[in-house]
């Protein structure tokens, strides 16, 4: 590693002021992406601001009809939380399927969504659940937050503080893992709240997570996997293609995973 300054603020206020003061500083959450990119010299910030000492960013609580998940909450905490398991078992399952045990114990929900990796699981899940992303400056619906591959609506110096997830939705996430890396090659999250259905797809889109609106319309009429029969899968021209899966195969898998997610969301 090369030299850089390391800061570990103890409050959100301190973190804010550090971010404002230090020009090209990087915010460190769980470090599952930032540290490997720094090791490979793909990122070389002059300073790193570690948020692990900020208590306001930790923990999971239920507030009314919402789960409020602190940005620094690890995937393992979400996966095993009694609150999440009871209120949104599909979200606990999604978190429990991210990476491997090491990644799940270090990686955080805030870090994952700030990076918006096109193969990450949370972006699809939070879109389908109609979550709200809260920062030190504002609140944004997930639909506005994820703006494209590796890009979000976050401004310079903006810090994600928590994620608000409404409960009471029917929700499930089904993913097909890349056989080698085990990242989502295609992941589909389906959420139904009232008459509104969101189908969000990760891993497959050439510009990151996206919604499959034709499927949403069909499932809005009748929330059953059979409703997807006769719906054309997302067009291959907008999908990724690599040595593991052509765009055509990914397109097909979106249909398969969407059906499995719907079946999962309706299972008792």
């Amino acid at each position, binding site marked *: 590693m090369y030299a850089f300054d390391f800061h570990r603020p103890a409050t959100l206020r301190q973190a804010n002021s550090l971010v404002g003061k230090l020009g090209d500083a990087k915010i460190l959450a769980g470090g599952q992406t930032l540290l490997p990119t720094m090791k490979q010299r793909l990122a070389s910030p002059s300073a790193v601001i570690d948020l692990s000492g900020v208590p306001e960013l930790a923990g999971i609580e239920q507030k009314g009809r919402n789960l409020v998940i602190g940005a620094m909450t690890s995937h393992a905490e979400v996966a095993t939380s009694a609150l999440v398991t009871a209120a949104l078992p599909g979200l606990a399952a999604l978190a429990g399927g991210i990476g491997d045990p090491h990644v799940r114990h270090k990686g955080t929900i805030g870090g994952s969504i700030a990076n918006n990796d096109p193969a990450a699981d949370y972006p699809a899940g939070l879109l389908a659940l109609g979550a709200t992303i809260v920062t030190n400056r504002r609140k944004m619906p997930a639909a506005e937050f994820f703006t494209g591959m590796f890009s979000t609506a976050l401004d310079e110096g903006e810090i994600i503080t928590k994620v608000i997830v409404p409960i009471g939705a029917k929700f499930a996430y089904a993913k*097909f893992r890349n*056989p*080698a*890396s085990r990242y989502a090659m295609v992941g589909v999250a389906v959420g139904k709240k009232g008459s509104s259905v969101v189908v969000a797809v990760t891993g497959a889109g050439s510009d990151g997570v996206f919604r499959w609106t034709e499927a949403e319309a069909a499932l809005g009429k009748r929330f059953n996997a059979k409703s997807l029969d006769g719906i054309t899968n997302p067009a291959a021209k907008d999908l990724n293609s690599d*040595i*593991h*899966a*052509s765009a055509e*195969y990914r397109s*097909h*898998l979106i249909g*398969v995973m969407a059906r499995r997610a719907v079946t999962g969301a309706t299972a008792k």
Partner: protein
Amino acid sequence: MRVNPVGTVEVLTGSHSHGQGHETTFAQLVAGRLGIPIENVAIVHGDTDKVQMGMGTYGSRSGAVGMSAIVKALDKIEAKAKKVASFVLEAAEADIDFKDGKFSVKGTDKSVDFASVALQAYVAHKFTGEQLEPGLKEGAFYDPTNFTFPSGVHIAEVEIDPDTGVTTIAKWTAVDDFGVIINPMIVEGQVHGGIAQGIGQALLEGAVYDANGQLLTASYMDYTMPRADDLPSFRVDHTTTPCPSNPLGIKGCGEAGAIAAPAAVMNAVTDALGHENIAMPATPQAVWLAARASFAKAAE
């Protein structure tokens, strides 16, 4: 093979062990033959400063070839030790028996243990240098007179998810004939490893280059190594038909799993698909494409 004056034995072997367990199997052979505890046997390998000549480990030959050389060296050690024992026990060499780590005089209760003979071999108090050269250290080289011919049957039962093309191995049953087996657990481990490697070849692994010759599968993010959850529990058994062409009756076992598994898996996959138009590795995408061809054929 160096027998130390305290009765411990050091074996320098040209067969290299990088996970095949020679340190255990070779030591077991020496300890059993000389009637000494296995911890008294050290196997030295892979160090050209100590081992004069070695050609590594390959071709499933360390048991059949490497251990045959050890048997030849053991024959020489025993013959020399009997000479020493005949002086210690004051009996004719032809009357010396060696069994369970003890040299004894036929028809008497006179005996001496292996370690005492080893010490006497070096101190030479019971014989003169004219009668016998002191020391207990022998070497042997072995060139096989024939190949060994292990045989076996591996049965792969696979399930294909027609929606995704994912092939799951539901059950694996293997029976091999490796001739005489020195260490059943190590042999079974060799078979497990070979099957894993073979399943990797059949379903997962493939080096992919782009049109410019750039390797695309340059890391484990893209090169699919078989992992524990890609594999079933193996049901492995064996029959024993001793090999006639080496002193221990051993046949090679190291490659058996890797030889049988790709054929067994691909036979099962093509059986499920109903046609043979698929190449290794039968990745989910390849199987999905092949399965679509099967459905098209069935619809005709």
